């Protein structure tokens, strides 16, 4: 078996792009390198492999981003950045292989769907975009006693930036927070300021998980509406499930009991 050189990166823009930079700069051939993004689960290490733990480096990450924008296209850059935020376990490797192809192919690369790595990247990006689009509709805010609107969710991809852009434009006069349970991060917006994302500590995490659910007049009215708008003669649970997968429902007001 051929020896592999595996670059283990932290799951962040800097981590992954530094990994790709280091692999590229190494003396090994591309085929010998592999990019792996660290996950929480225990991973079985490969036998004939040499592991390198990548130290995230802002400058290297910047360089990769700049080269992609200049030498490939803005479109490819956007695809890469979405893939970095995706929940796909192989994203690091896919981006690496895509870039090898893209630097050769040039501006067309992002749409050369005949290439398997372009297609893999395209699928990752599509999954990211679809989830982001879904949650722009499926996300639910509950009004807290102090008027703050609070939403909670656990998406597959890290789409918080997309959602904060969307909602801070839409509800620019409201204070709101979106809380990603899975990543334990929260996006915060207050009128007249710029939104930001921060990582919750243990205490904040617990506080958010508990203080969350607020039933009020509107949530009750919404449940009435949701029930009444269905046509009994057309009932179709599987269509409903296709359009609104079960994984979203625990966070949605209309599917909440009590």
């Amino acid at each position: 078996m051929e020896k592999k050189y595996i670059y283990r990166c932290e799951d962040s823009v800097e981590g992954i792009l530094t990994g790709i930079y280091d692999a590229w700069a190494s003396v090994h051939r591309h085929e010998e390198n592999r990019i792996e993004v660290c996950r929480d689960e225990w991973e079985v290490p490969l036998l004939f492999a040499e592991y390198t733990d990548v130290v995230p480096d802002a400058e290297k990450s910047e360089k990769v981003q700049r080269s992609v924008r200049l030498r490939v296209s803005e479109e490819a850059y956007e695809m890469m950045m979405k893939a970095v935020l995706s929940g796909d376990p192989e994203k690091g490797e896919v981006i690496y292989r895509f870039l090898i192809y893209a630097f050769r192919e040039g501006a067309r690369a992002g749409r050369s769907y005949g290439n398997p790595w372009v297609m893999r990247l395209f699928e990752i990006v599509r999954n990211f975009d679809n989830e982001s689009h879904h949650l722009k509709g499926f996300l639910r805010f509950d009004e807290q006693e102090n008027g703050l609107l609070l939403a909670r969710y656990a998406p597959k991809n890290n789409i918080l930036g997309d959602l904060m852009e969307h909602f801070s434009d839409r509800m620019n006069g409201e204070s709101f927070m979106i809380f990603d349970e899975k990543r334990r991060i929260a996006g915060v917006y207050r009128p007249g300021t710029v939104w930001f994302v921060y990582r919750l500590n243990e205490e904040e995490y617990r506080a958010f998980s508990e203080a969350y659910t607020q039933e009020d007049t509107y949530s009750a009215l919404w449940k009435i509406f949701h029930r009444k708008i269905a046509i009994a003669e057309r009932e179709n649970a599987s269509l409903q499930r296709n359009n609104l997968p079960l994984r979203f429902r625990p966070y949605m007001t209309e599917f909440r009991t009590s």
Partner: protein
Amino acid sequence: MVLEEGLSIEKKLEILSDAAKYDVACTSSGMQREGKAGELGNSVAAGICHSFSADGRCISLLKVLFTNECIFDCKYCINRSSNDVPRASFTPKELCELTIGFYKRNYIEGLFLSSGILHTPDYTMELICQTLRMLREEYHFRGYIHCKAIPGANPLLVEYAGWYADRMSVNLELPTNEGLRQLAPHKSRKSILTPMRQIQAGIAESRQLLGFKGGNYGAFHFTRQAAGLPYRPEPAIPEKRKEGNHAIVGIDSETTSVERTGRELRLSLLESVGRPTGRGFAAAGQSTQMIIGATPETDYQLVSVAEALYQKFELKRVFYSAFVKVNEDAMLPDLPGGPPLLREHRLYQADWLLRYYGFAAGELLTEKRPNFNAVLDPKCDWAVHHMELFPVEVLQADYFLLLRVPGIGPKSAKRIVEARRSGSFSFEALKKMGVVLKRAQYFITCGGKTLGHLHLDETYVTQSLMLNEKLPKNLQDALYGRQMSLFELPAFTAEAG
């Protein structure tokens, strides 16, 4: 929340959403509008679905009636005046607070306001206008509004509503005059087409004066343009007009007079209405809806009417609503198999073929073959009757020829065209691009290769497609309920070859 005396807001919402559920369109698409400081809301061109109800339909807007009181007695409608059902009306303020409260919690994309007719069409339309004005100007709501024009209402009020709404619609309900006479005696072709024409003119004018505020051209327009097909063909052939109650001709024959009235009305109105011009006039376009299966029209008539509406009225969407029998009335058909869902499904498929694929109604059905095939979708059905055009070489065929292949849609066709600039690719890659090979394989070559055995025989291909085809479960039931047997399939009825 301000309550009207009597009914609670819960009760009102219960009654007035229940009464609105038969209206199909819940889309919030066609309008891209950024937020603005001091206002609540924006709008996304693609539209956003916020939930799905137990029937699997999208919920995007707060779809309610202003009132379910009604002086009309349309036989198919649950709110007909002769029905004894609980009645309720919102106040404009109640509706505004509901919309804002729901919107802030991200339950909805906006408001879809329709109504029964309280006292007179004008009285009702005025209440609708008051609500829209209050929502936009007092509550500073910047989200999506879809508003119905009440047939018979003063054009001035329709005009007024159009400047507050993103989308306007007038329901055609039944595609022929005869159908309307029988089931909706208070409505007429004229009272429906007049506001439709007026809205069309308003949209066109606002586009000219204010620029392109939303996606007020529909897919039909763009497809026709890209394909180099005529968009607004010559007026109908005169001798056909004499045939009287014929769906397609119906619209044609009324075109000229309605068009003229529409324009005259608008000219006289332009001066008198103060127009908030920030949004444009119904800039997300106009739509309509037809009830399917309450009257005996053929699919050919329905698709032809839809085509005429896209062509001549520049509609953004036509919606089809499988008739649900909510009233007992001798004039209404019995539907032992439930609402004709399969038929509705086929009509939507055909509608997509008109709007995105560049098909003409006459290519899909003819007077001799007036109804859709129950087993094959309209495009497969078309393709097996045109085997002489296949196989199509996907690495070379132009976009619109690719679109003619069953299993290839606008998205996959675009990807094919993009991808082949960087060289050839495999069937596996085609599949990943979204091509449904179980259908496409009988019609294509890829780099000269075929996927399995390519046998361009109508009977063979038809049978193969049928074996592969799986309808959604609820439609399977509809299929077996219908008296359409294998013997009606093209392979068995067409001449050999």
